[in-house]
């Protein structure tokens, strides 16, 4: 009984922290982008504008909960929930420090892959149920992008799994006590980051919502809290990918002097900043170019990486 209560508290606490973090991340991104782009960004609400996130939340809660009459109602409402649920679910397996984390699954990596694949349904369903041509185009792009980039995201992680000999994220972190995985698995890291950015629809892989081409893509018809969920989902995605990159490649919580949890947060922050910087710097490829890049470059490289890792592993061990 006591275990259950502790776990529940743990879950609720994690979710709360994550939601707040996602909201703060929205503000942080706007502010940092602003500074990089020679402008101010939101700086009016609260010290340095940090309460902008709270103000936006309040606004979005009070907006009319609008469902277009031509939309497929149930799916339309359900779609934004999917992304948030799956993203939060995926966080369950993230080991923040030796002692914290919701659950310690033996198939952690697989669970993460499953959840991120499920999240893809959110955009597809939203695009389909909106009954809007721009949304449909966004949904189509999203479907194609998800399917292809899921494939080599999985493949890019297998090298890490081979090195650690486990799917368990804690064991993967511990296996990096001598050397971070980013060194032997640098190619795997690169492909994981590419696929991860693609999974969270961030520039340069934001084709499902490319505003210059298809207005807002799959969420064209969304407003109010339902739009808010997509938004939070995207930022949870950024956090998740960053956290996973830290766990799998950057030695997780490990580091000298500072407490493990702080190390974990610092490393995650660096990866998050990198993803934001990508958005400030790079233009968007065309749809077919994105596909070609995935299947013709990422996939062969990921496979090659796998073969070499396996061969080296066999030779040594």
């Amino acid at each position, binding site marked *: 009984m006591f275990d259950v209560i502790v776990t529940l508290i743990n879950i609720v606490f994690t979710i709360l922290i994550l939601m707040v973090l996602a909201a703060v991340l929205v503000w942080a991104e706007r502010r940092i982008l602003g500074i990089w782009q*020679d402008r101010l960004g939101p700086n009016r609400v609260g010290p340095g504008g940090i309460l902008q996130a709270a103000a936006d939340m309040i606004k979005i809660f009070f907006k009319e909960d609008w469902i277009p009459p031509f939309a497929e109602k149930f799916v339309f409402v359900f779609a934004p929930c999917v992304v948030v649920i799956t993203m939060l679910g995926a966080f369950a397996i993230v080991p923040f420090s030796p002692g914290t984390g919701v659950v310690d699954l033996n198939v952690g990596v697989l669970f993460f892959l499953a959840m991120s694949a499920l999240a893809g349904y959110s955009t597809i369903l939203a695009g389909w149920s909106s009954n809007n041509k721009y949304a449909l*185009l966004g949904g189509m792009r999203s479907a194609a992008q998800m399917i292809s980039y899921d494939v080599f995201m999985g493949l890019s992680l297998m090298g890490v799994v081979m090195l650690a000999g486990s799917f368990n994220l804690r064991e993967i972190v511990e296996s990096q006590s001598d050397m971070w995985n980013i060194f032997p698995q640098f190619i795997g890291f690169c492909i994981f980051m590419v696929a991860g950015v693609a999974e969270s629809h961030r520039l340069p892989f934001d084709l499902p919502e490319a505003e210059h*081409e298809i207005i807002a893509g799959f969420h064209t018809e969304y407003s109010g809290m339902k739009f808010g969920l997509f938004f939070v989902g995207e930022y949870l995605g950024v956090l998740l990918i960053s956290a996973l990159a830290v766990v799998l490649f950057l030695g997780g919580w490990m580091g000298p002097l500072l407490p493990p949890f702080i190390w974990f947060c610092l490393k995650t922050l660096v990866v998050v900043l990198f993803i934001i910087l990508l958005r400030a710097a*790079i233009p*968007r*490829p065309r749809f077919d170019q994105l596909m070609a890049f995935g299947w013709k470059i990422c996939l062969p490289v990921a496979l090659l990486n796998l073969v070499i890792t396996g061969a080296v592993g066999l030779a040594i061990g």
Partner: protein
Amino acid sequence: MGPNTKMDQIVADQGIEAELLNRFGSSCLQSQRTADEITTFWIDRTRLLQVLRYLKLEIEGPFLCLYDLTAIDERVRAHREGQPNADYTVVYHLISYDRNDDLRLKVPLRKDDLDLSSITSLWPAANWYECEVWDMFGINFHGHPRLRRILTPPTWEGHPLCKDHPARATEMEPFTLPDEKQQKEQEALKFNPEYWGMKRHAEDSDFMFLNLGPNHPSVHGVFRIVLQLDGEEIIDAVPEIGYHHRAAEKMGERQSWHSYIPYTDRIDYLGGVMNNLPYVLAVEKLAGIRVPDRVKTIRVMMAEFFRIASHLVFYGTFAQDVGQLSPVFYMFIDREKLFGIIEAFTGARMHPSWFRIGGVAHDLPQGWDTMVRDFIDYLPARLDEYEKMVMENSLLKRRTVGVGDYTSAEAVEWGVTGPGLRATGLEWDWRKHRPYSGYENFDFEIPTGNRGDCYDRCRVRVEEMRQSLRIIRQCLDNMPEGDYKADHPLTTPPPKHRTMKDIETLIDHFLGVSWGPVIPPGEASIGVEATKGNNSYYLVSDGSTMSYRTRIRTPSFPHLQMIPLISRGLMVADLIAIIASIDFVMADVDR
């Protein structure tokens, strides 16, 4: 291509006027003298196609570019000495780049028989122009593939540029919207693919029709493109314009010559005083005003400033439309600095309306040279930075190289001017080949591309900014002393220093500021190398305080007409890159 010596010889030998008279005889062609000295012939509508075919296909040094096609309602015009009887006149303006020469053909029409043959079989680019003439004057072009309202809504009644059409709301009944009218208007908005010349199904697929615009983040204003899509591939694209139409040409017939200047600013609203330039040049040509060198140089400097301002906006939005979010902010900061200078000189930022008939509004302020020097020393380093950020970015290159390309021949055929023409490798710049306002005294180069694709169109504009800086530096170093206004009775507002001393100039001054100047009767058309291509004003004066007809030929109008040709078979994302690379504003298209 480009003007060659052989052609120069032919032109020197004969000239187009003699050639045409030799070929068709003076019974067919009646010549007219105009203030701009462009060869002008009146021709009967039955012979029109024959003569045009000769000019385009048979003559040596052909007139390949249909530069403009418009009409004049002549019914209340008083001064038509030596011109054939006509209620309406249709005007064809052709350009030969080989000869570096212009030709104007005029066709007289009677009001009970407003019909002539379409020239779309000769020039596909005539399509939109003929639609516009039909829309504005009610002149029918038989043989036109789809003659329709192009600037006004499909339910519009009357033809706005006719002299009997009201020019203001106060001349009409108060507006009402009864149910049946609303019904009719809404009915007219319904989308019907067949109307746009599109099929709904292919053998094995149904097409999707996507209504891109008039409100869309990347169409740069209110521009609509109806897309026929197979997946994301564009089968056909039909551009639809007119959402930004505000009858700028009709306003020209209501405003005094002087008070129309601010309206010109708003034609290409990124071009500022660049728009004033062709207008005041045309008026000065009609009035016979010669402006002092200082005025010319100030005008050149300001025009080049606005070329840079406009190109900076283009550069940033171009990068943004292919998904690069940051450059536009940096470029707007540069533009802001530039506007600081413009504001110090003129008192306004985007729309200074600062050129005047016979001069400019004020002299340059004290310390202007320091401001200009600071800016032209500052910008090159920024341009170098953008070069690395945008032009050398491999993703941007992948998105734009080879996308939306056309050849020089196609560009000339479709009336493309400006950077879009030079991107194909044709080295043609009005500032060099038809120097106006003293451009012949400046040392600069004409940047060209060679592929004519989106990337080259951007490349050319980037280089043009550097050339503009060069021109501005020369203005700075060689600014002539003298007046900022011509000493001429029609200069508006007139020079004042003698006004209080003698009655003649006092009267000029009084008339100039109360009625506005009375410009002598005549016709003149002057084109300049504006920010987006060739912008010209074709003015007809009937000896009054207002223009009788103001025709504004804008570069963006033909550029947009070309979109279907270069976007078929590409993806939606490519279309966005093409739109961005054309660099248009809808105010410039719809007027």
